[in-house]
């Protein structure tokens, strides 16, 4: 039976892991290769490297990290951050990445999704969607619906989900459900869905967002943003219909281990690779 996946996400800047981690037992807590190996041993199903290096000139540092990881870690590796062209795809895949995640560049140039999936195969094109709740008043609902947006009733009112780019700094006016369907048509192989409302809160994934996106495409959906305890991951799988859960802080700070999260889910009937 196909299992649900637990995916640690490492933010990398200039070749080092950023965001403090509590891996005091590791010789070098900031080395992405060592952390990747550690999570592989812990039972991670895949890994995501998110490069937040500001300048494109430092791409060679990322390439080196990916190459060194591919020598040691034999589970799937997704790399994202600042990837803009087919040539970027080629370089990072050649270094040993299995999938490339694109966000801003997909919104600005949707044909990149199509071209990359035709050249490298859909399986290596992950479209990352950063979505934020855009609340609407009840009397605005009809006109916003006519505008093509998908409105949902949430805990505290009504909203549609808006796509943000540039690391959450710029809104696009694009409806996330429509965008997910569009990237599926263009040939994406997977969606990495981050709730900007929930990211960093440790209060659980945005279940409504996750469920609505997951329902509207056939692509596997990775839920991201908000994981604080194993219950949240379980919810994302059961109620959110997510195929995988991405997490960072909860693991980096050793609040829970991957094994604990997997066991929690498995005990409640979720297929997991233990």
């Amino acid at each position: 039976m196909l299992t649900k996946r637990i995916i640690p996400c490492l933010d990398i800047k200039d070749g080092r892991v950023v965001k403090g981690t509590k891996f005091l037992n590791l010789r070098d807590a900031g080395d992405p290769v060592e952390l990747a190996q550690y999570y592989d041993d812990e039972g991670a199903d895949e890994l995501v490297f998110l490069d937040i290096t500001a300048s494109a000139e430092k791409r060679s540092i990322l390439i080196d990290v990916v190459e060194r990881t591919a020598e040691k870690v034999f589970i799937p590796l997704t790399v994202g951050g600042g990837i803009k062209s087919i040539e970027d795809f080629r370089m990072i895949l050649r270094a040993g990445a299995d999938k490339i995640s694109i966000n801003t560049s997909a919104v600005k140039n949707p044909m990149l999704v199509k071209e990359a999936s035709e050249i490298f195969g859909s399986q290596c094109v992950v479209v990352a969607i950063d979505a934020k709740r855009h609340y609407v008043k009840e009397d605005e609902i009809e006109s916003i619906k006519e505008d093509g947006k998908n409105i949902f009733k949430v805990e505290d009112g009504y909203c549609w989900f808006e796509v943000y780019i540039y690391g959450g700094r710029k809104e696009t006016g694009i409806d996330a459900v429509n965008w997910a369907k569009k990237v599926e048509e263009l040939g994406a192989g997977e969606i990495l869905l981050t709730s900007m409302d929930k990211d960093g809160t440790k209060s659980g994934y945005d279940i409504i967002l996750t469920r609505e996106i997951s329902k509207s495409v056939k692509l596997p959906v990775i839920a991201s943003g908000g994981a604080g305890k194993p219950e949240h991951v379980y919810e994302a799988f059961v109620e959110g219909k997510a195929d995988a859960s991405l997490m960072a802080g909860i693991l980096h700070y050793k609040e829970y281990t991957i094994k604990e999260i997997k066991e929690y889910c498995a005990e409640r009937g979720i297929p997991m690779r233990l």
Partner: protein
Amino acid sequence: MIGIIDYNAGNLRSIKKAIELYDKAIITKNKEDLLSCDKVVLPGVGNFGTAMKNLSPLVNAINTIISEKIPFLGICLGMQVLFNESEEKEGIKGLGLIKGKVVRFKNVEKLPHMGWNNVKIVNDCPLFEGIADNSYFYFVHSYYVNPDENCVVGKTTYGLEFPSVVNKNNIFATQFHPEKSGKIGLKLIENFIELI
């Protein structure tokens, strides 16, 4: 020395690094080089039509490798191209080394079939040496092989039960990516390399 067939199939680095844990490896499209290897691996991601186009200058070499009884491992798309044809690209002939067609998953909620799934061992095969029945491997594909001859040694369930490992004489093939399947995947690669 293990030969990895180079036909522009994307990420060859992982499979090379995995093999290099146990033996030397060379990525090549040169027929003589391939024929001098102890074993040959045909990796693969991407599209059946594109793969067959890129493989066309190598068809003769592959046929010779098979007839010389050199152990041969097809991975993922490298498994699918061993068959006669595929629904992914009608009208394009596969290598035809195993009889049957490659077909698309139907009536499944999610495509591609992506992630870790277990392999049920249905027939003895040296690739499974030291690997427990129902071990998990990493899959990513939307099509699966439907052989017309008896060659299935491992099966996996996704919507239906499909062949995930086949073996015919010196030809071995897996639908999953052993080079991406952690320690158990590496064990399978080691088993292939140690075939006599």
